[in-house]
């Protein structure tokens, strides 16, 4: 630590070069911070640790609905603590471009999602209103809805009395505190009972069940027991953990992980070359100085550490600035878009991976120049040979 001043001085010996290299490192890690956060948010898909939820949907296809009668059977399975059902509605608000998820949910659905925070009074009002709906805070802000407003939705699948016009009264606005899951606020829930009575096509059918597994009960065993309820029927189910369900769904859009890895691979390869070149140049220019250091008593090993710390410092400095900019930028974009785009903030795990990458890159690019500095022969170096 006592050499920090020395390392710092060496780093800014050539200001232009260090500054430009630093900026390249900043952009590389800015990109990394943003892309990796998107990847994490996309792949985590709201799996809450400790929630222990299963999603039970049709095995045949996600558009196939399940009978309502499964509800009591599922609740009777040992290890099931709570369960609720929901059905996709797919309504459109004013214009298809305003897409947000909207579905009807059975009683107790919100009990399964303690992370959705709805004031108790609003919840009571909603439960006593047959045509009531609740929405997430982001969605309400985006469309300027207030409690008591009437929200008209155009049905795309389920007409009511021959018409596509449905309307709901807004009874509550819930919020999610976890930044990572803010995107899930873009949703509207209404009562399944109303959906079942009012739509013209399906009766007594639900889209999927959400099951909370009791602590201590294995979710695999419970999933198997649920699937065996409908084995060999025309409505076979597939129960899987919420995380597995979301991941499979996200993966069908695109393998974001692969794309991010590909892009970052190209970026970091270039970065290695660039900073490696800078460090090699920096050491080449300073050969006489390093020789002087050795002459006044610095050991070979200290010279190695000096050069190595310099390159690590360079990369870490740039990397931390880049990721800090990313974490400032992302909520800014989300805010500026008025809830249209929900970008996640840079999360702890991205920071961890980023810091590990910075250290690794710093060591890799510093190693060769550092070894060169260590092996310097004082006499030759001072003589400029």
């Amino acid at each position, binding site marked *: 630590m006592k050499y920090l001043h020395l390392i710092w001085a060496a780093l800014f010996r050539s200001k232009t070069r260090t500054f*430009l290299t630093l900026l390249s490192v900043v952009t590389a890690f800015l*990109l990394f911070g943003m892309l990796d956060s998107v990847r994490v948010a996309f792949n985590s898909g709201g799996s809450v640790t400790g929630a222990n939820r299963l999603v039970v949907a049709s095995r*045949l296809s996600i558009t196939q609905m399940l009978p309502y009668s499964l509800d009591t059977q599922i609740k009777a399975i040992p290890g099931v603590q709570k369960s609720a059902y929901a059905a996709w509605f797919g309504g459109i608000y004013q214009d298809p471009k305003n897409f947000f998820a909207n579905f009807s949910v059975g009683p107790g659905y919100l009990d399964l999602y303690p992370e959705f925070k709805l004031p108790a009074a609003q919840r009571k009002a909603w439960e006593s209103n047959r045509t009531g709906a609740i929405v997430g805070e982001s969605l309400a802000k985006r469309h300027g809805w207030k409690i008591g407003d009437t929200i008209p939705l*155009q049905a795309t699948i389920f007409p009511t009395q021959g018409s596509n016009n449905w309307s709901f009264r807004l009874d509550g606005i819930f919020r999610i505190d976890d930044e990572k899951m803010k995107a899930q606020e873009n949703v509207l829930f209404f009562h399944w009972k109303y959906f079942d009575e009012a739509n013209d096509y399906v009766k007594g059918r639900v889209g999927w069940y959400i099951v909370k597994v009791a602590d201590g009960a294995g979710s695999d065993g419970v999933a198997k027991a649920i699937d065996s309820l409908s084995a060999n029927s025309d409505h076979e189910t597939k129960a899987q953990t919420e995380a597995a369900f979301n991941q499979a769904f996200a993966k*069908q859009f695109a393998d974001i992980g692969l794309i991010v890895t590909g892009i970052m691979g190209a*970026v970091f390869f*270039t970065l290695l*070359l660039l900073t490696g*070149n*800078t460090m090699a140049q920096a050491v080449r220019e300073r050969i006489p100085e390093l020789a002087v250091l050795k002459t006044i008593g610095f050991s070979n090993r200290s010279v190695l550490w000096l050069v190595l710390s310099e390159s690590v410092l360079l990369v870490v400095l740039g990397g931390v600035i880049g990721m800090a900019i990313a974490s400032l930028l992302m909520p800014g974009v989300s805010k500026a878009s008025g809830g249209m785009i929900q970008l996640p903030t840079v999360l702890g795990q991205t920071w961890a991976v980023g810091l590990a990458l910075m250290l690794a890159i710093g060591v890799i690019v510093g190693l060769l120049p550092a070894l060169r500095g260590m092996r310097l022969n004082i006499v030759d170096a001072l003589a400029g040979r």
Partner: protein
Amino acid sequence: MKKFMINLGIALLLILGLVAWAMLPWYLVLVVVALFVLWLLLTRSGRLAWEAAKIGLASLPQRWGASSVIVVGIAGVVGVLVAMLAMGEGFKATLNQTGSDSSAIILRAGSQAETNSVITRDQVPLISSLAGIARGADGQPVISPELSQVVNLVSKADGTDANVQFRGVGPMAWTLRPKLKIVEGRKFNPGMRELVVGRGAQKQFVGLEVGKQLKLANQMWTVVGAFSSGDSHDSELWADVDVLGPAYQRQAFQSVTVKLDGKDGFNRLKAALAGDPRLKLDVQTTHDYYAKQSEGLTKLINILGKVIGTIMAIGAVFGALNTMFAAVAGRAREIATMRAIGFRGVPVVVAVMLETMLLALLGGLIGAGLAWLVFNGYSVSTLGQNFSQVVFQFKVSPELLWNGLKWALGIGLVGGLFPALRAARLPVTEALRAA
């Protein structure tokens, strides 16, 4: 202060230059290049610039390590940019090729996609009697009532479940989609539990080889053939609609595809539909229907690709600046000597710029070439509008490659200009005296 103002002015000019460069069509670029070459060959300062550039290029092999930063950095930007945009292009091309202006799809009013639509059996004879629908040689209207189910198949890539469109079609479906050709085996027999599969689906999902049996809706189906159409139907499985419907307990159809009668067939059909109060249906040409499905995703990929490309380009500019500043500093004496023996500012500036641009061009060519080699025709799939997989191929078009090269030269321009100016401003005496 004066120097600062000059630099500010140059930066502004540079931004204007970049904007103009981005908008320049290819033939004007050719004109610019031709003018530049003429200037190099015909005028005195041009010839001097060329001589100066030759000296710089001759010493390039000595600085290969540092110069490769420019080449690799720009290759990375161009490669990623071209690959991302090629993905959007490929998706758009697949959906744009699907459908034609000579056939139309009829859906329930308000439905955005087939999945959401319902057309009851009693509506089909009403539809087939409407005006604007072409008739076959036997006088029957050419229509195909269809039902498409989303089924789960296992993907070859990672063994996870994927949603695939399983389409039941009427006997006229083959006439309606002339692009679709059976390439292996045969068509399914009406009334049998047989199906034909698209080539794209066959490549992406497990168990679709001809002759294999497949369990769908708890019944065994035999794959009797494979077809290829080069559009989004390639990702589908086809069977007889009258077999598929009962298997999934569906009494109604979802869509009716019809062949249009002549050029004004569509307008006549639309008018006829609007005039029949029993039919609350929407009609659009199949071309419009599929083209609309690609809009959102293509736009998203385009924006994403350009944002990522821009950030990477900024990083690459810093890399290029760094390298060229170092090159100019390393050759300070040489450049000072040249200036002392009579090379003026312009040839020196042009020489350094030319060197950077050539390196950038090399990087651009490598990046674009790699993107083309690796990704052209690379097939992937994503979730389309019907909640099912659309298989498509990356399409690295010449236009994209050209765009990539333009980006490369733009980065070279920015990265070369400031070092070139420094070279031209180098105080001759000091540089000559320096060690």
